[in-house]
């Protein structure tokens, strides 16, 4: 009862985290991705593009590009407009403008595996194959659905919409300047080559690692976690080719092969291509 009254009081003062009950403004821009798909990197990229004078780092990123699940309602409604908001949510029809970051699920699962070790959700020696099976089935440590569910809700509902910009993590890595130019145009930020190059440099894996070393113990997503494991890990794509077993790859591709192909990810287990097509 007392707990409820405190919650009621917090609500009254606007000190609760609104989460999915967020009030959306018509000029909001959402940076949407499944967890472990480069959302933090993209937050740095966009913060450095939009607010270069604020010197984005782990100390102020939650303020510059906040997560409605991590800051209070009152704070959210006082932010300068347009707001740039981070989100891991599945489809929400109210989001007016969306930058959708998508990453190869075979790399997402690896990233999530190492992050779960870092935050002590699983032990160091937890079998990766077992982790992949749970990932595919949707037995997760977060409420955002499976990779396939989450990605499909955005991709199929908005794939031809001018209000959604699809950017893959892999393209951001291989041709950062070009993808950043697309993002800048989409959000209407005048950006010349220098400004984009600056944002890329300020958000490089090396610089983010350096910042993490200094500030990792302060940032909300890493402060309670093991400090012997980095948050900014390999910052590369294709690690799954070395680390995932063939059975795990097959498991992922048989679940989501069709969607992966539509997104441009080539399947590794050829026999899965046919099986995936059959399921449509």
């Amino acid at each position, binding site marked *: *009862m007392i707990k*409820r*009254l405190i*919650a*009621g*009081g917090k*609500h*009254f003062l606007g000190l609760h985290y609104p*989460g*999915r*009950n967020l009030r959306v403004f018509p000029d909001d821009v959402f940076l949407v991705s499944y967890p472990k798909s480069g959302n933090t990197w993209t937050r740095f990229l966009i913060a450095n593009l939009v607010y270069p004078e604020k010197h984005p780092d782990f100390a102020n990123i939650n303020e510059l590009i906040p997560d409605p699940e991590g800051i209070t309602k009152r704070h959210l409604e006082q932010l300068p407009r347009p707001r740039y908001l981070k989100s891991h949510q*599945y*489809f*929400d*029809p*109210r989001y007016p403008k969306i930058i959708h970051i998508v990453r190869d699920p075979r790399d997402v699962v690896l990233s999530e595996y190492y992050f779960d070790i870092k935050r002590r959700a699983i032990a160091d020696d937890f079998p990766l194959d077992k982790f992949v099976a749970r990932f*595919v*089935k*949707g037995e997760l440590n977060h*409420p*955002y*659905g*499976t*990779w*396939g*569910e*989450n*990605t*499909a*809700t955005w*991709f*199929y*509902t*908005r794939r031809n919409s001018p209000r959604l910009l699809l950017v893959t993590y892999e393209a951001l890595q291989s041709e950062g300047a070009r993808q950043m130019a697309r993002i800048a145009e989409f959000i209407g930020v005048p950006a010349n080559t220098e400004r984009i190059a600056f944002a890329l440099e300020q958000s490089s894996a090396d610089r983010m690692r350096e910042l993490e070393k200094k500030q990792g113990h302060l940032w909300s997503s890493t402060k309670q976690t093991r400090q012997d494991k980095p948050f900014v890990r390999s910052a590369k794509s294709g690690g799954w080719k070395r680390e995932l077993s063939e059975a795990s790859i097959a498991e992922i591709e048989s*679940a*989501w*092969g*069709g*969607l992966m192909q*539509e997104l441009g990810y080539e399947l590794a287990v050829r026999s899965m291509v046919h099986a*995936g097509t059959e*399921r*449509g």
Partner: protein
Amino acid sequence: MARIGVGKHLAAGVKRGLGLHTPGKSLVILPDDIFLVSFPKSGNTWTRFLLANLRFPDEPATWANIDRLIPDPTGTTKRDFDRMPRPRIIKSHECFDPRYPRVINIVRDPRDVVVSQYHYHRKIKKIADDSPIETFVARFLAGETCPHGSWGQNVLTWIATSEGSPRYLRLRYEDMVADTPRELRKIVAFLGFNTTPEQIAQAVERSSADRMRKLEKEHPDQHGLMRGSRKDLTFVRAAGSGGWHKDLPVPMVEKIEAAWGPIMRHLGYKLSTQAPSEAPDYESLGIFSGSTRQ
């Protein structure tokens, strides 16, 4: 002005403390919950009556008790939610939500949905009596007539994530109208309820359009769906399918089919451009189910 605002806030805080607020999206979902999901105006209320009458035969469903029997996160208080017998059957108009453990998804031909919603919005005075249907269809296509996305988006989020999952049952409103007991048996099998044919017949009888109309006439202000609405228009309207053939101008039909043709065909709704003799083809959307859950 400020004082009124504070008073309102304070009342909301106290309500929350007592569990008298509606939980909305903050609803705590239990692992055995069953969600009855549909885009608005797709037969959700009728199905709520059917399921209430099936599950609670000792308490025939009315407009007064339906929010307690088959609760609505935006219409039922948290306290009533917490007191419900389990498993709970919960009404929802939301797009895909991965937390819903089991889902009964009712879909309806969007050409009928738009006509139904048009009349409903006249009844609740959201639009003027003589508001042109053309304007309404344009807003409907853009997803601006309700907060649950457009018809196409709402339906797609479920198809793309859940089709083929053993935790997901999709029924068409049109099939329910054509043979209600048959479709109810599908629901019963999906939920694993022990139900006799007599119980099914009774639930159908107690949820008939005639009975629902009679109940509506007796208590026209009882339910949140029609409180304060025009009494010269009814909530339970035609209760049939295919009304769009006469109510929807051809250019409007064409617009809807152009926007959502593949989804409609996937669900077995024949487009007006298809020959009448042609069988519905359940066209593949080329969508791959994300659902691999057991």
